[in-house]
């Protein structure tokens, strides 16, 4: 039973990793960023490239990935997302286009493959990143042998969740963001630069996705289409938890991850995933606003 719970915990942590960034962008800006999974993918590729070209290991790649994906997020916000505020469904479509562009950019090695130039670490093939020595092997907790890297991911997810919470609830930026979540018009009237704050928020969410990507590179094969399914999972978590509620996102990822693991134990992995979708549909039908929401006025 303990091992199943641990599998559930590690599934939850992966869900949360993807969902954290989404919770920030979707909650604050009402932007459905379908390219979020591709941000995760880009983060994973940063760790691949850092490993090949700089000899840097996974831990060093984390801050690099954060900066790179945050900058890319900033560019996307400026060029596309900014023009679509208030057109919620259109952002979904435009960012889907961006997702395709990003995937193809990696596949075609930024277009260099047309000229016969190949960059090691890019292209349509699969990539791998070695896990640092210290995180390999298993650790024994309560008489159970647990994968050390999985524990590391759970711990890192907790750190990131706390960091996100601290940014949202203990900084002036976070206060502005929360004001915008409640009422963008009123926030602007109070002198908050909504556009600027939104740009930073989008960059922050993208950066979080990048970090998630680095962590995932440690146990998943890295490929250009690895992000495609993640964004769906992330959205399910955010919507189930309640838009704009960080606590809701955390709780929902825990619930869905554990539920997935438990159903998968009594049937199989496919049915486990299917059950998660079924739960999400039921939650939206019964409580469209999500499980944990603040009382709006």
């Amino acid at each position, binding site marked *: 039973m303990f091992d199943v719970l641990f599998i559930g915990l590690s599934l939850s942590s992966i869900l949360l990793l993807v969902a954290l960034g989404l919770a920030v962008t979707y909650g604050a800006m009402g932007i459905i960023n379908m390219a979020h999974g591709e941000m995760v993918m880009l983060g994973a590729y940063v760790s691949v490239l850092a490993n090949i070209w700089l000899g840097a290991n996974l831990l060093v790649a984390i801050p690099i990935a954060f900066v790179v994906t945050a900058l890319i997020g900033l560019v996307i916000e400026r060029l596309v997302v900014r023009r679509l505020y208030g057109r919620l*469904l259109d952002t979904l479509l435009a960012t889907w*286009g961006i997702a*395709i562009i990003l995937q*193809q950019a990696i596949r*075609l090695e930024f277009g260099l493959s047309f000229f016969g130039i190949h960059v090691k670490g890019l292209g349509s093939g699969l990539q791998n990143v070695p896990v640092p020595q210290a995180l390999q092997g298993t650790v024994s907790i309560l008489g159970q042998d647990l994968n050390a890297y999985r524990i590391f991911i759970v711990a890192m997810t907790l750190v990131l969740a706390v960091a996100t919470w601290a940014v949202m609830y203990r900084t002036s930026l976070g206060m502005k963001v929360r004001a915008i979540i409640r009422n963008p018009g009123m926030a602007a009237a109070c002198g908050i630069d909504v556009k600027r704050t939104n740009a930073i928020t989008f960059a922050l969410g993208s950066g979080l996705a990048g970090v998630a990507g680095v962590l995932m590179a440690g146990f998943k094969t890295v490929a250009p289409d690895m992000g495609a399914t993640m964004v769906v999972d992330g959205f399910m978590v955010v*919507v189930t938890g309640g838009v704009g509620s960080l606590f809701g996102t955390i709780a929902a990822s825990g619930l869905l991850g554990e539920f997935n693991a438990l159903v998968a134990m009594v049937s199989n992995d496919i049915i486990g995933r299917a059950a998660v979708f079924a739960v*999400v549909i039921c939650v939206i*039908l019964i409580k469209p606003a999500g499980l944990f929401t603040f009382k709006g006025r």
Partner: protein
Amino acid sequence: MKTLFSSYRVWAYLAFAIVILALPLIGDEFWLNRVAKYLCYGMLGAAVALTWGYAGILNLGQGLFFGIGAYAMAMSLKLKSYTSMQQGSETPVPDFMLWNAEPGAPTDLCCITPGSWLWIPFQSQWVGLIVAVVLPAVFAYIMGRIIFGQRISGVFVSIITLALVLLTRLIVTDAQPLTNGFNGLTDLGWFTVFGVELDPYSKVTYMVVAVALIIVLALTRLLVATRAGTILQATRDSDTRALYLGYDVPAYQSFFFAVSAGISGLAGMLYVIVAEFASPSFLELSFSVTMVVWAAVGGRGSILGACIGAILINMLEARVSETESLVEAWKLIIGFVFVIVVIYLPKGLSGLAHDLMSKLQSAPKLSPVQKEEAHQ
């Protein structure tokens, strides 16, 4: 002016009908088979435009209805396939069921694999045909009643439909003994109408698809022009207001949702007749989003526009894909086109055409006063 304005649309529909009916004169059977597939996609585009453009419901799970239609027809055609008669039983049994059967299970549809009895009615192709259209419509109506009855709207509907199609895909892939899982249904027989077998590579089959598309387009266009269609557009613009005016908003939304699902089922059914396979790839998220891309490029606000958008994009894609190195680049182009269309051309190509037509028509009709103003 008013009559001119409405007539150019009628002309557009007529021109489209004449063009697709005339294609057999210029193309060979293989090319026509390809075009017939695109016409099915065109039908899908129209279905998306009906819910998205006219009802304001972005369904990210349209592939679910297409998939139901495709699987229903494929089950019937699979039982008509020569491979199904070679399993050593009196009645047809799909070959993959034998591979998945428990040792000692009787070779009969009743009980060869768990749930295989579900296939029994599909021994008649007409059952397949009816199920392909009616099941998606009924399912969509019930779904719509629940979703819209709860007054769920906007992105939440998209997420529910998206979750539903992915859920169905997982179940279909998991039920290997019943659906052949990942591999889908292949080696299908031919549909027969009045003793004529619909060979996918024949002009007859192409004409069947083309006529079906024209009928669907005409009926859908007439449907949205009715009073019910107008009320539907009112619910899109402000559902609260429509509700307070006394209209049963969920009923209208569910009805059109069901019509769109039925059209998608029909498209899936025809696609199987032409393409001779059904697979879980119809239920993938990317396919459902691709349909939305077609409708967006063609113009979500126009049934015909979305249909033409779907056909054009697929024709272009086929042309481009003939060059090996351009296959990946094509996806890149589609990505860019999509971003640009969403930002700069929210009404798509049909919106562009519409603006052009109204400019052309209004230019010579300026009153003297307006002309003077224009000169100044």
